[in-house]
Every structure is written in structure tokens, then in C-alpha cells.
């Protein structure tokens, strides 16, 4: 085997190694830790790009659809496999990009706010990459726990009453969700006798009718665990508080954590309950559609009602999650293509916005916004951090640059043309309308989705405009905030990437359509992982 064959496991091993390495250095040698973290994350991006090119190449050659890596070279249903297809590769690359920008941002001041920041940071990347690449349900649980354990530490980074209080809720909810995850996994194992995702997809059509209820119960319980992570209403009351409490770079990285839940739901729904699944075909889609619509509505109301920018960002995360879940619920090939585009675009935007929030809050005059609970936390932290050396140069005309970034974030979030937010929403909406048979009337759920998407965009625009006016036009006499180049640069990079997505909209959308096609044709995925066609294996349930 050449080195390239082992490329797929590198996104897991590299962060693990880097995390271990940072532990060897004392907290006083923070530059070394930051250097290791930076190098590892840059390398991760390089690997992710290589993986993306490689998965694209194998698919184009037509030989295989995915890259399958057998750990310990055990044959697929018995050993653990890692599987990379276009979607996994996109997600790993997205993780790397968010990671490097959050890291650059944290180098200005946040990395000094507590111990072991860089170690936890790399462990979170490892958990995320593992969850995106694994082809095994129980392995997914393990990577989820690695990711969650690191996220607990990162959420508490910087300490303070608000973070500890939010962290207590966040940990309790996630521990309960993990229990549901285990119950779901074991129920599915009890019915089908396998944990390999591809093998599961093979066996589900052959599950006897009287076991189907148990299988569906297992899948539903498992789904709840992911939907808690994805933030579907009514499982999402923890989310705005938690995201508003997290320190800015951590929140920027957390933007992808809700997308992990969405990714798994997308992958499992289409793989296990796709067209070939027989009696189980389309299981859970109506639930996802309704839940997604409810989440958009809840998020929209929240966006309008938010008094602080931090909570506004938290509710924007919910709107984005709701849109994705509802689009998954449509279960249509063309919609999935637009959905993936929206996934990438909205994750980049929200990550930029979550980091921008802290800079904007800094610009506000203290006490101008009585209801801004987060102000207290940031105020306290500013005092603590005053003595720490700050890296980078203070930039001139801060308010103008912040204002431009804020306006661009608002345009991207609300999906106003000509930016990528608009293209992704347009791709989904046009697909929704075209997918229906021209003769038959468009179902009510489709109109609901269209209406809610447009209203949520309008609500984001109103809320962003209101906050923008209150911050950038009303506080001219206030002190100019102290913003450094390396704090504004990552936000600028993320926004430029979104603009790049707009310019390269055609090719990117084409790529996403190919990825969506692969997701909707799970037989190829199964074939690659197991090495047998679904027809040849009629083993049935054990």
C-alpha cells in the first residue's frame, strides 16, 4: 500500500498526535503549543483537500464510489471501516477551515484564558473528523464522545459564572442524549445483528415484519440523539444560551457541531431508509420535515426577539439547522444538492458571525444594552485579560471594517442576492418546485417550506439591520474598540470564502449535485464497503 491509501485515517491520527504533543509543553510555553496546533490544522486542510481530490478522482474513473479503509484489514462487516465519499471529504475540509480560522482568532487573546486550550482544540477536530469518516455505528458513538468531551472543556474555556452554568446544562443534556444513542444502537444491533452502516443497509430490507417496529423504534431513538445535537425544536432550548456563553473562537468552531448531527441524519436516512429499503422506505422523513419547519419557525421568532447579538447568532444557528432538516425531509435528489451547498455556505457564515459577535459587543458602550447578558461576561474577561500580552497590531478605522463585515454577514445570513446564501436557498427552492410532477398540485408542505424560508430570511435581515443600526450608527461618541488584525482576518477569510462560493457557484453546485446523487444511490456505497451486491446477500436478520 502506498502512502495515499492511508490518507483517509490521517484526519484522525494527526489531531490525536498533535494533541498529545501539546501536552508535553508547559502552559508557559504557549507559543510552542500554538505553533503545533497551527501546523497540525494547516496539514489537516492539506490532507482534506487531497482526500477531496482523491474521492473525486475515484468516482470519475467509475471504478468505485468511495474510499474504504479497513482498520487492521479485517473484512468489512466484522472489522471497523472508515469510509470517505465526497460528502465526508467536504465535511472534513470544512472542519479544517473553521478550525484554522478559530485558531488564528484565539491567538490574539483567548488562548491565554485557560489551560490546555490547544490540546482540547485538536481533540475536538479529531472527534469531528472521526464522526465524518466512520462507517460503523458504534465507532460513531466513540467519536461523538471524543468530540463532546473536548467540547465540554472548550465551552468552559475562560471560566466564569455564565459559562459554568451553561456548561452544566450542556453536559447534562448531552449525557442524556448519549444514553439515548446507546439505546438506539443496541436496539438496532439486537434486531439486525450488525453495526456496520453498509451491512445494516443490506439487512434492513430483510428484517421480518414483526421486528420492524423494534427496528424503527431503535432508529428513532438514535435519531433523537442526533437531533439534540442538530438543535431540532423542541430539543434545542440549550443551544442559544450555550453558544452565547462560549468564548468567541470556541463558538466559531462550534458552528460545525450542529452540522455533525445534520450530517449523520442525512447519511443514515438516505443509506438505511433509501429507495432499496423495502417496507422501511422513507422512514422518519415526514417527522424531519415537520420538525425542520418547526425549528425554522422557532429560530425566526428567536432571531426577532433577541436582545443581544450573541443570542441572535445562536438563533441563526437554529434557522440554519431547521432549513437543513426540513430539506432532508423532502427526500429529493435535487433538493439534497442545494442542501449541501447551503450546509457549507451557512456553516462558514455562522462561524464568521459567531466570532464577529464578540468584536461587535466590544464596540458597544457598556450599559447601552441593559438586556445584553453576555456583556457582563465579556466585561469581566476583559479585566482578567488586560495584563496578558496581546498579539498583533491594532487596526485603524476599526468601526468601518467591523461594519462592513457585519453587513456582509447579515446579507449572507438572510440570503439576499448576490451572495452564496441566496444561491443556496435558490437552489433548494427551485429544486423543490421542479421536483413535483407538473400536472399534480404542489403539496402544502412545500409551500410551508418556501414560505418559512423566505420569512426567516426577512427576519434575519430585520434583526441584523436593527442590531447594526444600534451598534454602528448610535455609538459614535463611545470609545473605539481595541480590535487586532489577527482577530478580524479570520472573519474576513470566512466571508471571502463565502464570496468565493458565490463566484464559483456553478462548479460547486455541480459538485454538490454529484455528492447528492451518490447519497441517493446507496447501493454503490454498500457495494464498495461490503464488496457484495445487495442482491447476492439475502442473509436476513439474525
Amino acid at each position: 500500500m502506498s502512502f495515499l491509501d492511508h490518507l483517509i485515517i490521517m484526519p484522525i491520527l494527526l489531531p490525536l498526535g498533535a494533541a498529545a504533543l501539546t501536552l508535553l509543553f508547559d502552559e508557559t510555553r504557549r507559543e510552542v503549543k500554538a505553533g503545533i496546533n497551527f501546523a497540525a490544522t494547516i496539514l489537516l486542510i492539506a490532507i482534506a483537500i487531497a482526500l477531496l481530490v482523491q474521492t473525486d478522482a475515484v468516482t470519475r474513473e467509475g471504478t468505485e464510489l468511495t474510499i474504504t479503509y479497513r482498520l487492521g484489514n479485517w473484512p468489512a462487516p466484522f472489522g471497523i471501516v472508515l469510509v470517505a465519499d465526497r460528502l465526508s471529504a467536504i465535511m472534513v475540509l470544512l472542519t479544517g477551515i473553521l478550525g484554522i480560522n478559530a485558531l488564528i482568532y484565539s491567538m490574539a487573546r483567548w488562548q491565554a484564558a485557560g489551560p490546555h486550550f490547544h490540546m482540547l482544540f485538536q481533540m475536538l477536530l479529531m472527534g469531528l473528523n472521526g464522526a465524518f469518516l466512520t462507517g460503523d455505528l458504534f465507532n460513531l458513538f466513540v467519536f461523538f464522545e471524543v468530540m463532546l468531551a473536548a467540547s465540554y472543556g472548550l465551552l468552559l474555556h475562560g471560566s466564569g459564572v455564565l459559562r459554568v452554568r451553561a456548561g452544566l446544562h450542556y453536559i447534562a443534556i448531552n449525557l442524556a442524549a448519549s444514553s439515548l444513542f446507546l439505546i438506539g444502537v443496541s436496539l438496532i444491533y439486537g434486531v439486525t445483528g450488525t453495526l456496520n452502516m453498509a451491512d445494516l443497509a443490506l439487512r434492513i430490507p430483510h428484517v421480518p415484519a414483526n421486528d420492524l417496529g423494534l427496528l424503527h423504534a431503535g432508529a428513532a431513538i438514535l435519531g433523537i440523539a442526533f437531533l439534540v445535537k442538530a438543535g431540532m425544536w423542541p430539543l434545542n432550548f440549550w443551544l442559544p444560551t450555550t453558544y452565547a456563553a462560549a468564548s468567541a473562537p470556541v463558538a466559531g468552531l462550534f458552528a460545525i457541531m450542529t452540522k455533525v448531527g445534520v450530517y449523520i441524519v442525512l447519511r443514515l436516512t438516505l443509506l438505511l431508509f433509501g429507495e432499496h429499503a423495502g417496507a422501511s422506505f422513507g422512514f422518519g422523513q415526514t417527522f424531519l420535515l415537520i420538525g425542520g419547519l418547526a425549528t425554522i419557525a422557532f429560530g425566526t421568532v428567536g432571531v426577532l426577539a433577541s436582545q443581544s447579538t450573541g443570542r441572535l447568532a445562536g438563533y441563526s444557528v437554529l434557522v440554519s439547522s431547521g432549513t437543513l432538516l426540513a430539506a432532508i425531509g423532502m427526500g429529493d435528489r435535487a433538493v439534497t444538492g442545494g442542501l449541501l451547498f447551503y450546509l457549507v455556505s451557512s456553516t462558514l457564515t455562522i462561524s464568521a458571525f459567531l466570532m464577529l459577535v464578540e468584536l461587535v459587543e466590544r464596540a458597544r458602550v457598556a450599559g447601552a444594552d441593559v438586556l445584553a447578558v453576555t456583556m457582563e461576561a465579556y466585561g469581566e474577561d476583559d479585566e482578567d485579560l488586560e495584563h496578558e500580552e496581546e498579539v498583533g497590531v491594532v487596526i485603524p478605522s476599526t468601526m468601518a471594517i467591523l461594519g462592513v463585515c457585519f453587513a456582509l454577514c447579515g446579507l449572507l445570513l438572510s440570503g439576499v442576492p448576490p451572495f452564496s446564501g441566496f444561491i443556496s436557498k435558490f437552489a433548494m427552492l427551485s429544486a423543490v418546485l421542479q421536483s413535483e410532477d407538473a400536472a399534480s398540485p404542489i403539496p402544502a408542505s412545500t409551500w410551508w417550506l418556501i414560505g418559512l424560508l423566505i420569512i426567516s430570511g426577512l427576519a434575519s435581515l430585520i434583526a441584523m439591520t436593527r442590531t447594526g443600526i444600534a451598534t454602528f450608527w448610535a455609538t459614535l461618541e463611545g470609545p473605539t474598540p481595541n480590535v487586532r488584525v489577527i482577530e478580524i482576518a479570520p472573519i474576513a477569510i470566512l466571508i471571502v470564502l463565502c464570496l468565493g462560493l458565490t463566484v464559483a457557484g456553478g462548479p460547486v453546485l455541480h459538485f454538490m449535485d454529484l455528492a447528492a446523487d451518490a447519497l441517493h444511490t446507496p447501493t454503490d456505497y454498500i457495494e464498495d464497503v461490503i464488496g457484495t451486491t445487495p442482491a447476492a446477500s439475502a442473509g436476513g436478520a439474525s
Partner: protein
Amino acid sequence: MELILAIGIGVLAGSGVFLLLRPRTFQVIVGLSLISYAVNLFIFSMGRIRLNAAPVLNPAANDPALYTDPVPQALVLTAIVIGFAMTALFLVVLLASRGFTGTDHVDGRER
């Protein structure tokens, strides 16, 4: 045997859920522990209950019917380790919260 196991899991899960919904952090952590015990027993039972059979294969006797399913046992082992670590971590946050807010209420203030 099935009945005893089912009642055991039910009692553990029921008490766990009750405690999880209580307002004191200590009750929450005990509740989470009880739920994780219930879940571990549940995973175990999903490999079918089989008495007096080893999970380790012996090359001399090749019939799978002679053995109990080893996979759930491996899963339980992993789940126990992870659950234990998470409980320990939660305990630290609980103490930090007690120190910061001066109360053991989950919301950090008495209602």
C-alpha cells in the same frame, strides 16, 4: 431471568429519569449514573440472555450456538469506560458551579 433483568433495567431507568428531572445538581448526576447503568444492562440484554456460555470462541468447538454474543459485551465495556469518564467530568463542573454560584441548584440560583 428475563423478567428480573427487565424489571431491573426498568427500575434503574425510571429512578434515573426521576432524579434527572430534579432541581439539585447532585440528584442530576446520580440520575445520569443510574440511567447509564440501565443502558449498560440494556445493551447487554440485546445480545440475548444466555446463561453459562463463554463469549470467547474455542477452536475445538466451532458451533456458534455454544457461545454467547461477544459484541454487546465489548460495547458495554466501552460504554462503561466512557460513561465513567463523563460522570467524573460532570462532577468537576458541578463543583465549579457550586463554587461560583454558592448554590447546588441546576440553574445556579434558588427559585
